[in-house]
């Protein structure tokens, strides 16, 4: 394949890591709470912009990322408790409601930050490039790749190896039973929702440094997250990781080989996959 080299593969992997961070939050909420949060892309954008402002004001990238996570987690709590509680249990109405919230958040961020493109400032230590396999590669992207791996590991451990993870999984299958055992399942669900939202905020804070933030970024990242979750299957962490890997690599290849039709290169395979497995690679029937 002409033009595909280590550099592009690394681009694909680092992009995959970023969309995994965002999509893992989406799949957490979708898989465990059965809520399709179409405001996830807007949460990413708001998180990124807030992270940008906080990083500018404090001069610290870490403060920016933490502020992004905190703000978006709070927004998630408001969304879950303030609005979604009115339509609990009706899937389609939940989805459409979050869609309305997405429009609202996107428009509000347009009012606050304007229509300009922002780039979250990268800390000194992560600027510049480093030698990898005989070529130079931006340090920051390597950092995102490592962060993506860390998020995957942390989520996997949380869900599979902790009491909280067991509670979440049990709560999905049989909320009444968990409730009867004296556990406040609603609080567990709220926490899950906030964690999922915070991951969107983290994605915004981190992604804002190499994808930049602009008014339609929320829609683009939402589509990538959707593709990841559709390919991976609902609520599967491993599926999301594989989906992100596939989407990231296809995106890198597509941008080099068919720059104008890069979207087709990503979504063509997704379409073919769906023709054979409508529930995605790791999807289970509900």
């Amino acid at each position, binding site marked *: 394949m002409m033009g595909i080299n280590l550099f592009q593969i690394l681009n694909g992997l680092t992009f995959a890591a970023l969309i995994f961070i965002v999509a893992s939050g989406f799949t957490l909420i979708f898989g465990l709470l059965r809520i399709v949060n179409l405001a996830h892309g807007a949460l990413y954008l708001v998180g990124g912009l807030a992270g940008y402002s906080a990083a500018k004001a404090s001069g610290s990238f870490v403060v920016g990322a933490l502020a992004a996570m905190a703000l978006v987690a709070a927004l998630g709590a408001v969304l879950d408790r303030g609005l979604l509680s009115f339509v609990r249990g009706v899937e*389609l109405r939940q989805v459409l409601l979050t869609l309305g919230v997405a*429009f*609202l958040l996107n428009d509000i961020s*347009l009012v606050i930050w304007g229509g300009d493109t922002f780039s979250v400032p990268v800390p000194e230590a992560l600027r510049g490039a480093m030698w990898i396999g005989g070529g130079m590669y931006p340090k920051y992207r390597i950092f995102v790749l490592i962060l993506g791996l860390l998020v995957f590991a942390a989520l996997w451990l949380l869900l599979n190896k902790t009491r909280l993870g067991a509670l979440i999984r049990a709560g999905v299958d049989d909320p009444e039973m968990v409730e009867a055992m004296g556990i406040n399942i609603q609080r567990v669900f709220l926490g899950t929702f906030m964690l999922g939202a915070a991951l969107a905020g983290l994605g915004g804070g981190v992604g804002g440094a190499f994808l930049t933030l602009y008014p339609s970024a929320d829609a683009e990242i939402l589509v990538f997250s959707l593709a990841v979750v559709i390919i991976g299957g609902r609520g599967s962490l491993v599926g999301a990781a594989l989906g992100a890997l596939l989407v990231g690599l296809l995106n890198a290849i597509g941008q080099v080989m068919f720059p104008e039709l890069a979207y087709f290169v990503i979504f063509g395979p997704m379409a073919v996959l769906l*023709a054979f497995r409508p*529930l995605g690679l790791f999807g289970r029937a509900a």
Partner: protein
Amino acid sequence: MVLLALAVLPAFLPSYQVSVITQVLIFSVLAMSIDILAGFAGRTSLGHGAIFGVSSYVAIYWTSTLGGDIWIGIALGILAATALAGVFAALAIRTSGVYFLLLTLALGMIVWGVCLRWTAVTGGENGLRGVGRPVFIADHASFYYAVLIVVAPLTWLMWRLVHSPFGLTLRGIRDSESRMRSLGYNVPLHLFVAFVLSGFFAGVAGGLYVLFNNFVSPSTVQLSQSVSALLMAITGGVGTLLGSFVGAAAIIVLENAVSAYTARWPSVLGIAFVLIMIFAPEGVVGRARLLLARRRFRSSKPNHSGG
């Protein structure tokens, strides 16, 4: 009656209002095309804005870039929309509920991405400008009549469709897919045909929109187009085909009123969506029907307390 009232409207109203009503008629067709799926087959689509917009893109590309005849352009646009609906349908009909919504959303976004990036053909963000309406429908009133002449029989056709045995089968599928399957109905085929027909109607709306607006850009195919059209169908009442007219009128009048004061239309659209989902998910006409049915129920059983 309604038709008669619509026919004499331009005689009384200033041209701006006539063009707003023209817009309402065009978007009613789009909203009804969504309702065929959402209300009768139980499949909520978020990709219809893309199908609608592709029809517009093809028609304008044919006339302005290739210099072709506008009517052939519109015919090709409708054909393209129908074909695109076929592709969407083939991918989406095996899913239902939230998955169907997500899939049509993602497919619509692909179309949007292609329209945005494929600058050589679509003009990218700048969009494409058409060659304008033919002379005989150039002014507001005559164009209004032209649209009315198309929309009236089209509405009748859609109404016949959802009240035909085919439409009843769709409703059966909406209520219980497994029952219909065990009764021997070819469920995927019915859904496929319904989606393609729905795409055809959305394509016609896109063709009319070309004549109305003479301009197409990625914002024509983007998600907010699908969303506002779906909101029209929902506001009118899902499953009440003619409610789409009420919904389209409500949303378009709201849009015009809001944009006269503020540029924050997306916020208003978002809030409207949230409020309708919380308070009136069955829509205006749907709610009216519900109340009417309750009243009938009460009056037919006077001794029965509670409704």
